[in-house]
């Protein structure tokens, strides 16, 4: 790797340094006005991301996980109303002006999108799109940037990069395109990479490969990874900490092991039970949580999950539950955690 690359860890002169989380989201709320009403996509969400760690953010569609990611990147549509603070290395991203935010994007924080076939511009070669990312934030001329691009392509495991670099996205497979997208995301050694459903649009056989590439590259570069997915199984084995979202709120957050061993939230338990297991007989019906996610316009008054919850009581209908500490760095948003923990003893086994 050439010497022009910015070194790790970042010099302390840039923004607030020191130890502690690189990202601290505080009471983030996002709303969009639509024709049918005000959509409450994200409600009072707070969490952090530590340097170099993998944070899994799990939730169904409509849970607000993607909107959170867009809010961090500053890519929300113009009509959105955002409240709260997003502190990156101490500075509030929401308070930055557009030019400053543009310098952050792609350099400090980058994003991997869901469908690689649509995330890449179909009329430009993959090489051009990679070089564009490099030259936006690094002072390299075209040849140097091209060499850099080839090395990155090698890093993400693309065979024969010399040939591929001048090809168009439609000439590459989905898995290959996603590798390019990953290469683009890490091109400038960002502190944080947000991956929004990075494998959902890919074939199952390719998913594992791409996950492998992503985690190894992330570890090598040293960036933190915020892995957003609806598949709890995907974060097993890759995430350090897991955060479960539902109805625009965080339901539970814990180290990965704790989530799988001692899920303390009814929704988390439901998700765990929905995972198909190898050791179940073929005749056991697949479990799915009954009911449907709430409308984003009419959020239930109390707990977001109560209509579908086996442990729900009248209190859950009217009173939104607080975040309660369950263990070390383990929080759950529920009124009846003790009952849940008692019930979850039956589900606790080794992670899938």
């Amino acid at each position: 790797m050439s010497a022009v690359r910015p070194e790790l860890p970042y010099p302390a002169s840039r923004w607030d340094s020191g130890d502690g989380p690189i990202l601290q989201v505080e009471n983030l709320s996002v709303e969009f006005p639509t024709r049918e009403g005000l959509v409450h996509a994200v409600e009072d969400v707070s969490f952090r991301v530590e340097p170099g760690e993998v944070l899994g953010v799990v939730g169904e569609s409509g849970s607000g996980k993607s909107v959170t990611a867009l809010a961090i990147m500053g890519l929300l549509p113009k009509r959105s109303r955002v409240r709260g603070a997003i502190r990156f290395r101490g500075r509030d991203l929401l308070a930055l002006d557009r030019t400053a935010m543009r310098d952050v994007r792609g350099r400090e924080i980058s994003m991997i999108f869901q469908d690689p076939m649509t995330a890449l511009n179909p009329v430009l070669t993959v090489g051009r799109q990679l070089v564009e990312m490099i030259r936006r934030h690094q002072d390299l001329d075209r040849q140097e940037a091209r060499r850099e691009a080839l090395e990155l392509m090698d890093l993400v495991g693309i065979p024969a990069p010399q040939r591929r670099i001048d090809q168009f996205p439609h000439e590459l497979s989905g898995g290959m395109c996603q590798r390019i997208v990953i290469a683009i995301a890490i091109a400038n050694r960002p502190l944080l990479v947000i991956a929004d459903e990075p494998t959902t649009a890919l074939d199952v056989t390719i998913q594992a490969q791409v996950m492998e590439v992503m985690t190894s590259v992330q570890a090598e570069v040293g960036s933190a990874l915020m892995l957003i997915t609806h598949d709890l199984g995907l974060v097993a084995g890759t995430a350090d900490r897991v955060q479960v979202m539902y109805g625009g709120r965080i339901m539970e957050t814990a180290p990965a092991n704790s989530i799988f061993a001692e899920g303390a939230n009814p929704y988390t338990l439901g998700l765990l039970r929905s995972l198909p297991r190898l050791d179940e007989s073929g005749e056991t019906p697949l479990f799915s949580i009954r009911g449907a996610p709430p409308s984003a316009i009419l959020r239930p008054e109390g707990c977001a999950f109560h209509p579908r919850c086996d442990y729900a009581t009248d209190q859950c209908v009217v009173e939104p539950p607080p975040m309660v500490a369950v263990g070390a760095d383990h929080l759950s948003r529920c009124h009846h955690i003790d009952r849940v923990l008692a019930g979850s003893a039956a589900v606790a086994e080794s992670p899938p």
Partner: protein
Amino acid sequence: MTDVRSDSLVGGDGLLQPSAVQEARGFGRQVWDRFVHHRVAMAAVVVLVLLIASFWVAPLLSPFEFDELTPDLRQAPSWAHPFGTDEIGRDLLVRTFIGGGFSIRIAVLVSIVATLIGTLLGALAGYFGGWVDAVISQVVNLVLVIPALAILLVLALRWGSGPWALAMILAALLWVRIGRVVRGLFISHREADFVEAARAAGARSSRIMLRHILPNAVGPIVVEMTLLVGTAIILESTVSFLGLGVQFPIPTLGNLINEAKGAIDTVPSRILFPGGVAVLITLCVNFIGDGLRDALDPAGGHA
């Protein structure tokens, strides 16, 4: 413990909640709802209906015939003659409205005939593919590639002096747009699952096309048909204006404008009446067509 599943679809008695029944409302109903709420399109419908109604009503109410000669020559608009009179004393309001009536009838006829031809040929080409498609597509390409207006003039000169003959000529040129749209729809639908199922059940091709695929195509066809009316009005009036279309004594908006052109030095505003009516019809028709398109596919476009 009280039942807290308040927003589930099934009530305590096991029957579907009213809200669930609402969700199952038909697609056609949804489209209708959306269209009715499209304010611009609805306004256009109202204006168009009023306009067309006046084409029939106004001549009945007016004291003048459309070819009746009055002693008031070359009058500017007045109370007696709201649109004025022409060089030989005919009342222009009556003439304009009767002309409008002819123009719109021609345009609607064009639209219907072109739609029938286009749907038939497009369906055949799209569903059967192969040489049927090759032949029809080649014809479509030919018609698209020849200069429309020039050919239109050539044909109209020879055969297009009557309104219905001109309508046929226009339809012969305009069917290709609908043909292409329908062909595309049939191509995309012929591999659909429900078509496979019907084929597996032994249904004849014609039945599949009519009963299964065609209902899905109705929406876009109706949109194209509506927009065709506007195109037909413009083309008919253009050809008639140039003197090659409908000839007198039958008035259309086109040849009325042509007449008015002669008086452009003395009463230049005379072209505004028939021309304005033509523009108004086309505008309304376009708004309605657009509204229909939005109602059919609200996610597809932006206003």
